[in-house]
């Protein structure tokens, strides 16, 4: 396994705000590495540092064996970055935008034109390539935004929430493109705050919040962290004492007046627990059952829910 991206002890603050607090991770060639975290978690700040745009306060970034501090320009040549905001020339056509971005990376002439055509085909926008970007739908803009970072056939691709604010169909197309890139050996960092996306396409996932990576690994490894247990959350008009004896030998994750969260080994024990709960006649407002999933992992490691 070749390590394409090695990040150590990376930190960056904006005044009082500690956006990234000493994170470290490695990404292997051909891997899709996901950054899963809520708004303000520090995903974009990390991407900005990886792209050489933002200087870290401390820590090191090594990409394809080159140190960012000394080889920024060489690194940027082999990297494709898809920014979170759509950054395109609205007045230029989709094709002209791609010609510009490809040219910026040193492509010229026939090579540039062929690369642009390939990129347009990849995101299925050949038909609209001549129209100004301002006439595109949100999903089409996202797709051009995506391929503007791919024209120069980068080895490493950083995608910062590339599916933000688009409909499910367009999202699936983008996810397919990303998967295809990984199949062709590209190394990819993919940030998102959508659990399903992370589950669906990432080989490994880092759970990030408040500038800290709380856990990272494959989906299976992460699920293992929560002990592969079913998480049941009950809310209602009861006191902590009322429910404590009901729990029995189940593991209590969280308990307070009006809310109880327990981890149960399997479905049978879950059924027994809920049966017992209802037979007490306690006032229950809601019950949420979560199979072992990234969502429960997120809840477990960060202590809060990740909402879209």
């Amino acid at each position, binding site marked *: 396994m070749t390590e394409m991206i090695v990040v150590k002890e990376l930190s960056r603050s904006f005044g009082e705000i500690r956006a990234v607090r000493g994170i470290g991770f490695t990404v292997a060639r051909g891997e899709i590495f996901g950054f899963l975290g809520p708004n303000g978690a520090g995903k974009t700040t990390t991407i900005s540092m990886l792209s050489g*745009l933002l200087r870290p306060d401390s820590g090191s970034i090594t990409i394809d064996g080159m140190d960012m501090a000394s080889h920024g320009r060489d690194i940027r040549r082999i990297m494709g970055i898809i920014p979170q905001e759509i*950054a395109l020339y609205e007045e230029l056509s989709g094709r002209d935008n791609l010609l510009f*971005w490809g040219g*910026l990376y040193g492509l*010229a002439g026939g090579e540039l034109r062929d690369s642009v055509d390939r990129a347009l085909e990849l995101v299925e926008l050949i038909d609209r390539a001549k129209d100004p970007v301002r006439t595109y739908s949100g999903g089409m803009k996202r797709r051009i935004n995506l391929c503007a970072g791919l024209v120069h056939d980068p080895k490493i691709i950083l995608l910062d929430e590339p599916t933000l604010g688009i409909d499910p169909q367009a999202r699936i197309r983008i996810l397919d493109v990303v998967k295809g890139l990984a199949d062709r050996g590209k190394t990819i960092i993919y940030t998102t705050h959508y659990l399903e996306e992370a589950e669906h396409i990432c080989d490994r996932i880092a759970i990030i919040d408040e500038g800290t990576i709380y856990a990272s690994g494959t989906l299976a490894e992460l699920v293992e962290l929560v002990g592969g247990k079913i998480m049941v959350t009950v809310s209602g008009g009861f006191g902590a004492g009322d429910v404590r004896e009901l729990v029995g030998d189940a593991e209590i994750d969280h308990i307070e007046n009006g809310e109880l969260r327990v981890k149960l080994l399997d479905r049978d024990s879950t059924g027994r627990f809920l049966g017992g709960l209802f037979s007490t006649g306690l006032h229950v407002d809601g019950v949420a059952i979560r199979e072992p999933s990234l969502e429960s992992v997120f809840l477990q490691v960060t202590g809060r829910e990740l909402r879209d």
Partner: protein
Amino acid sequence: MRRGRAWTIWKIAACDFRLTMREKSTVLWIFLMPLAFITFFGLSFGGGSGRTPLAALTVENNDGGFLSADLVSLLEGENYFVQMSDTLPDGADPVRTLVIPEGFTDGVLGRGKVELALLREKGSNENAGRAASAAIFRSLARLVSGLVEIEEGLIREGSESIAIRGDTLYGSLLLVSQGGPGMAAVVEQRIDTMLVRPSNVTVRPERAGRSMETPGGFQSSVPGSLVMFVLMTMLFSGAAITAERQSGLLKRIGMSPAGKGDVVAGKLLGRILIGAVQIIFLLAVGRLFFRISLGNDIDGLFLLMLAFAFAMGSLSILFGSLLSDPDQVTTIGVITAMAMSALGGCWWPLEMVSAPMRVVAYCLPTGWTINGIHRLMSFGMGTAAVLPHIAVLTLFGLVFLAAGAKRLKWDV
């Protein structure tokens, strides 16, 4: 094979150029508005009012007397911009020089033989040379006829030092002035009084080097509008940088292999290209449509204007770096452009303003540019005469550029 930095810079420049040329407002501001201004100011300054000097003549005065000074003022009355050779700026080549010999005043007063020489630079305009000779002859004729009138008066008064006996004229004004204490001053004063009288010969001022009728208004409204609108084009272009920062484009460019230096160089190059198109357009229209004279050195004129575009393009990058809102850039751009145009002499000739305001003009790139254009276009001087101007403008540009590059931020 991937191209290097020069290609990246070119791509950035070409993109900016293209985006600007596509905009409708650009066409308005770069091409149409200047034409409207040239026409309006050209017509209001009116057909050959001759308020601005029409041609230049350098005078090398080796005579200490008052008559040579009178000759110079007569030449100025001929609508010539007379530049004394000892006040010529360093490095300027005079195109044509009138040499007044030592002892000119005494020689003329004594009715001796004096020789004036008109030196011409190789390649200077033939017609302009003839016009200059004609102007010199007219001035001399007025001077001499004035002297003859004074002599006649003195003879009638029965002066001792000058008299007609029989058919012969004895004595001279020189003798009169040497005839006793205070006499020199008396003669000098008589001559000066005589010369300020309106001439009874009316002389129609001709544009040096051009026999054809040209409304003088355009000759000065073209340079003024050229400088003012190139300035506006450049300053307004700062807003695009701010807008690109707001939309995240600048940040994305910053994530590419292009470094800050490349981005600044590309943006500047794009602006200079736009400026060059505007300069060529306005000079061509001025020459072909408004029929003004562009002087003897068009290359020098273009070079001077490019230096100006460089300086102001750099200032636009500084504005784009310092300000965060495109509207702010436009507002400050308009104010700056208006102030610099007015103070720099785009709206009225600097000869009309007070000395302190002239000093202000030379603190501004516009003042240097307007002065340089006049040297080339009105006085027929060559590139050498505007090299100091080009150097100063380049220096302005480098300072703005360094500050702009230092303050450029990718992100809001």
